[in-house]
């Protein structure tokens, strides 16, 4: 394995390049599938591999931008990206991030930042996880009652769409017409939480797009990736100016993320929206368990939980994609033979 060991030119970190490629594959698969940047997986992993924390964050942001370009292109071809919605949410998301960061600075002065942030994070992850599982349970009940095809068993977005404060916007790709202030305020709230918790926001944006805006799961994933791509490019630039990017590591991870992102994105073609939501819920609960373990001082167990969850989910998505692709190719061959 020494053959793959390289010394990164800027940070001077010695690392096994194969590990970076594998990390890139895993984040590419899960990012393309769930519509997330995956900072919650990559930053701790790079830190474990020996990167100083600021380099881990900067390198992750730069890699996240490159990987999101690949996934967003593919989702755009599927018609899953609502750019208008993405731009509106991003504009207000940025304002929210800034205010969230200032709240953190205030808490830091009081000496409360660390534990408060971690416990708020745990509460939100628990709420999102419960929401996703409740939605899945309700959908099962509706299916049993023969309610037919429904977009979402939780219909909060329908209530929110009744608030018609002008100006109204039409979001054709998402199939939504609502007050501009709905995506604006949801973007602001997601940004506020993301800035407060110090995360990219994909983990919050995806369920917010589904349950509050009313996007189909696929459009939520695609639009989320579009906003992550823009935010990641800005993050890469600002961390670059601060000198905290290891470009060689970014490029090696991208080599793994490219096929990974394709697999994750194409898997959304074969796995139903509710399957994606359910797997997302499991991932969120694993992330929550990891934060709790870290908070009680079990850092090693926290990393183990996150890495195991990432590996299992990646394998599940890869298997789902290959099974779906094999079925499609078989059906095509049969139809050709029929002609």
């Amino acid at each position, binding site marked *: 394995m020494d053959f793959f060991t390289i010394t990164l*030119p800027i940070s001077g970190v010695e690392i096994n390049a194969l590990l970076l490629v594998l990390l890139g594959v895993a984040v590419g698969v899960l990012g393309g599938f769930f519509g997330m940047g995956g900072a919650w997986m990559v930053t701790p992993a790079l830190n474990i591999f020996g990167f100083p924390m600021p380099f881990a964050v900067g390198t992750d942001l730069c890699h996240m931008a490159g990987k*999101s370009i690949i996934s967003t*292109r593919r989702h755009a071809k599927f018609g899953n990206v609502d750019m208008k919605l993405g731009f509106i949410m991003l504009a207000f998301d940025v304002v929210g991030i800034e205010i969230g960061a200032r709240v953190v600075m205030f808490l830091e002065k009081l000496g409360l930042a660390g534990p408060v942030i971690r416990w708020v994070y745990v509460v939100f992850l628990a709420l999102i996880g419960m929401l996703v599982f409740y939605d899945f349970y309700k959908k099962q009940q509706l299916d049993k009652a023969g309610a037919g095809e429904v977009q979402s068993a939780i219909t909060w977005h329908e209530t929110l769409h009744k608030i018609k404060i002008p100006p109204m916007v039409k979001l054709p790709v998402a199939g939504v017409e609502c007050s501009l202030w709905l995506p604006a305020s949801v973007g602001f709230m997601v940004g506020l939480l993301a800035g407060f918790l110090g995360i990219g926001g994909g983990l919050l944006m995806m369920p917010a797009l589904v349950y509050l805006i009313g996007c189909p799961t696929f459009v939520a994933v695609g639009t989320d990736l579009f906003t992550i791509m823009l935010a990641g490019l800005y993050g890469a630039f600002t961390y*670059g100016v*601060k000198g905290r990017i290891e470009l060689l590591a970014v490029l090696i991870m*991208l080599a793994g993320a490219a096929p990974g992102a394709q697999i994750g994105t194409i898997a959304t073609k074969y796995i139903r929206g509710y399957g994606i939501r359910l797997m997302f819920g499991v991932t969120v609960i694993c992330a929550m368990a990891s934060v709790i373990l870290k908070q009680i001082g079990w850092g090693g167990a926290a990393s183990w939980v996150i890495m195991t969850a990432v590996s299992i989910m990646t394998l599940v998505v890869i298997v789902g994609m290959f099974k779906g692709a094999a079925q499609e*190719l078989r059906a095509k061959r049969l139809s050709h033979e029929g002609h």
Partner: protein
Amino acid sequence: MTRKRKLQALAWGLAMTLAPLGIMAEGGEKQGKLVHVADTRGLTGFNLYFADLYNTNRLLFAIEAVLITVIMGVTLGILMDKLVSVIGLDLSKRSVKE
């Protein structure tokens, strides 16, 4: 300086010296280096160019890092598209719904 003042100054000095040790003992993280310089000895080609640029012009380094990331992302995306179309998958539509 009165005896009381001397004692106060000594107490402050001691507190300031020991405070970081206390913070570290409580698990506070060590500060990273504020100014980082890349070691260019033994580097060649791409690595030498970027390490030099990193040391001399951070703004240009940031711009080139973002541009290379975008170019690499787009190029790899196009390559993967070609690879997937060779396999024969139809990536223009989906059959499954919610």
